[in-house]
């Protein structure tokens, strides 16, 4: 019998019209590392909640079927008992930290269980070491970075020594490097301590290499499960709207061109090994393939629209958030500002519509200094869409929500009507016109927030972390939309740490670190600048990782996406017998 046994599980939330879980059968063995993925709203989170009895004890509603965890029927044991066997870690680290200092927070669960002090100190020190945060055990919890907070959340659960860890999208708010660190911690726990791990993730690129088994959820059911190789090469997975790890996708496409590898690669490292065994080292005489110079030069723009000149800014009591930043953005350009959390990206874009004012330096938009313009005035031209839609939705229905800004700007009612219609159509929201924004799903709420800004058709659109918490299909949709804006000649700026998204969209990249711009240029130039990327703590895209290792064979290092990689590799492998 497995450590988790689920038999014909059905569940519906109170007052819900349809079931959230529609018959789940699943056995998970001790020591397995499972990657569970699926489109947003498919019931992944609901399923997690049954594993430690939050459903049915905390949430009412109707549950049928059976769930046993470590041999305990979850119906018959309260959550605090089950918590000793299965630890749940949630998406937002801020909402799972209760104490004011790190050490005390790790102790919280143990204190609740009445563990004696000596034992407690032992468990805490182990948990902090395993997650790699023992050097900051006295730090105040609100002073930690997002990645550290999430590792603290894991440590706090670990200290209670559960045999099963369930993590519900734990890396949503983290940059790729932070996410990788979390996955490595999980890998250690799995291999060294034989913990059973159930990881729910959209980030299949980084997580797949650790998984023994992949489970695909779709519409409240398990639609497919098996080894990562099987699942991600199965056409059904793609149809379920789940992302495919880039290296596996590359492998697939190579196969369709008649080039086969012995094993399906699950990580860039594996792919590199397989490629290396096929390639002969080129002699020194043969030069690397010449890069495409046009791509290096970037597209040519002539009309500067935003000019940031030597801007510095600091928040009270903190070091410089922006330190002598200068940047010119042209009309119609598509720019991505990248860098670690706290590098100054959001601070910079908040200057563009006057939410923050430069303490030194100046900003001009189309030649005129913006120092004396009000936020409302500037916002007409620079539309800022923030990361979390819940920080701005407040209206009774979507229509009202979209017209809010239009009314603030004093548009006439006929114009407002037209604009609202246009904005609803633009992002495919027409059918939600009269729905309350609060009942919509996360992805839909994000679209409402976006269209509520696009409605007044600002010349410049700025999106702060548009891909956070979005699943594969939603990201694809966003990407198409951004391309559409681009063809309309709109100036678009995105702030993001989603390097794969950027590799697919190919904007101009502005890299920031410690309040400074450390590199700026076309994506191919920046992504191959190993030094600047490391300084900004931005991980290269998966495909770039592969090509970085292969330059000694005479392959170009500046390949960033699957399409290009397939072309370059198949040409190369055909040439060299």
């Amino acid at each position, binding site marked *: 019998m497995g450590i988790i046994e689920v038999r014909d599980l059905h569940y519906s939330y109170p007052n819900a019209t349809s079931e959230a879980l529609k018959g789940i059968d699943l056995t998970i063995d001790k020591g397995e590392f499972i990657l569970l993925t699926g489109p947003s709203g498919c019931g992944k989170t609901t399923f997690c909640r049954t594993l430690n009895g*939050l459903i049915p004890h905390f949430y009412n509603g109707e549950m049928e079927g059976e769930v046993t965890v470590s041999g305990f029927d979850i119906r018959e044991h309260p959550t*605090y008992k089950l918590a000793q066997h299965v630890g749940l870690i949630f998406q937002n680290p801020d909402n799972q930290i209760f104490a*004011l200092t790190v050490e005390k927070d790790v102790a919280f669960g143990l*204190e*609740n269980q009445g563990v004696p002090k000596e034992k407690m100190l032992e468990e805490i020190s182990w948990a902090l070491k395993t997650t790699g945060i023992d050097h900051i055990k006295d730090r105040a919890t609100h002073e930690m970075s997002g990645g550290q907070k999430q590792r603290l959340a894991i440590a706090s659960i670990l200290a209670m020594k559960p045999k099963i860890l369930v993590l519900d999208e734990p890396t949503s708010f983290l940059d790729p490097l932070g996410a990788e660190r979390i996955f490595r911690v999980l890998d250690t726990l799995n291999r060294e301590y034989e913990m059973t791990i159930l990881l729910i993730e959209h980030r299949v690129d980084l997580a797949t290499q650790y998984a023994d088994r992949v489970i695909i959820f779709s519409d409240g059911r398990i639609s497919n499960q098996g080894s990562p190789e099987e699942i991600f090469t199965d056409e059904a997975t793609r149809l379920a709207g789940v992302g495919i790890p880039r290296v596996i996708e590359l492998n697939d496409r190579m196969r369709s061109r008649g080039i086969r590898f012995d094993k399906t690669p699950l990580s860039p490292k594996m792919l590199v090994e397989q490629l290396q065994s096929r390639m002969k080292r080129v002699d020194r005489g043969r030069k690397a393939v010449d890069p495409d110079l046009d791509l290096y030069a970037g597209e040519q723009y002539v009309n500067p629209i935003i000019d940031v000149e030597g801007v510095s800014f600091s928040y009270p009591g903190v070091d410089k958030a922006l330190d002598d930043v200068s940047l010119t953005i042209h009309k119609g350009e598509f720019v991505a500002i990248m860098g670690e959390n706290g590098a100054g990206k959001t601070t910079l874009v908040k200057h563009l*519509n006057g939410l923050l004012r430069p303490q030194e330096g100046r900003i001009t938009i189309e030649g005129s200094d913006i120092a004396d313009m009000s936020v409302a005035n500037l*916002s007409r031209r620079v539309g*800022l869409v923030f990361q979390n839609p819940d*920080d*701005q939705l407040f209206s009774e229905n979507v229509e009202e929500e979209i017209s809010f800004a239009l009314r603030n700007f004093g548009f006439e009612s006929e114009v407002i009507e037209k604009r609202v219609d246009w904005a609803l159509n633009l992002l495919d929201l027409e059918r939600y016109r009269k729905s309350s924004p609060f009942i919509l799903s996360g992805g839909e709420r994000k679209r409402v927030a976006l269209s509520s800004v696009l409605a007044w058709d600002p010349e410049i659109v700025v999106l702060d972390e548009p891909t956070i918490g979005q699943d594969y299909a939603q990201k694809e949709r966003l990407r198409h939309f951004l391309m559409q804006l681009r063809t309309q000649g709109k100036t678009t700026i995105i702030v993001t740490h989603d390097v794969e998204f950027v590799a697919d969209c190919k904007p101009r990249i502005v890299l920031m670190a410690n309040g400074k711009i450390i590199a700026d240029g076309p994506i191919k130039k920046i992504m191959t600048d190993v030094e600047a990327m490391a300084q900004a703590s931005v991980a290269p895209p998966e495909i770039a990782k592969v090509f970085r290792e292969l330059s000694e064979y005479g392959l170009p290092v500046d390949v960033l996406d699957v399409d290009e990689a397939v072309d370059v590799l198949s040409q190369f492998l055909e040439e060299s017998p």
Partner: protein
Amino acid sequence: MSLLEGLRFTRGDSIIHRLDPRVKFLMTMVIFTSAILFLDLLPLLVIFLVQIPLVFIAKIQQEWTKSLKGSVFLALIIFSTNLISYYFFQGRSLNTENVETALALTIRFLNLITSFSLFFLTTSPDKLSLALEKARIPYEFNFAFITAIRFVPVLADEAQSIMDAQRSRGLELDKGSFLNKIRKYIPILLPLIINSIRRSLDLAEAMESRAFGATRDRTNLFELVMDSRDYAVLVISLVILAALIYMKLYLPPFEPLLSYRVII
């Protein structure tokens, strides 16, 4: 709000910080009661001056001065209302004695502020909660207290994000009539409230997952233990309190510092 800032704990390390919170509270209460006990300028000034070395030992001069500066306005109000009322009740005349009493009342007020800021500036909420626990206050209250403090910076960030988002959608908070201005806070308050409700659900889930309420016999990672220094401070505080009460009851009253003279 600088008055409140003088009450917010900032991390530091000193003998005062390390003092058992219960003893420290007693110490604060002794200063507090002694300020209530006397109405003469001299003892109140002495009480005020006694706190200054303590502030320097705790290295909280900056924050402490901030709280003093913050209370200047209230202090001025106390001083002037006292003088004005004397002036009118005595038939439009004032003497130095009145000035002295008004001054004494003002210093008394400052004593109350500074004694409390000395306590709160040097006592971490964690220690405070331990003290509350020792005082047998139910853990639920204690937990609520710590959680409230924990989420102050989180909520402040969130409020800022909401303001930024709505201002970017053309909301101008400072324009319009008074009623209009109030109405303009709806787009800010609603998301804040809804987010808080969502957050409280998340928190409840996380609490359950951390075995909250599993046993009545909760243990504690840190325990309050009184050491010899704490006992020393405890005894000294009590002796001083006793001496002050004795002085108040059995010694002759203080001579006024300013001589009796009619000003107006």
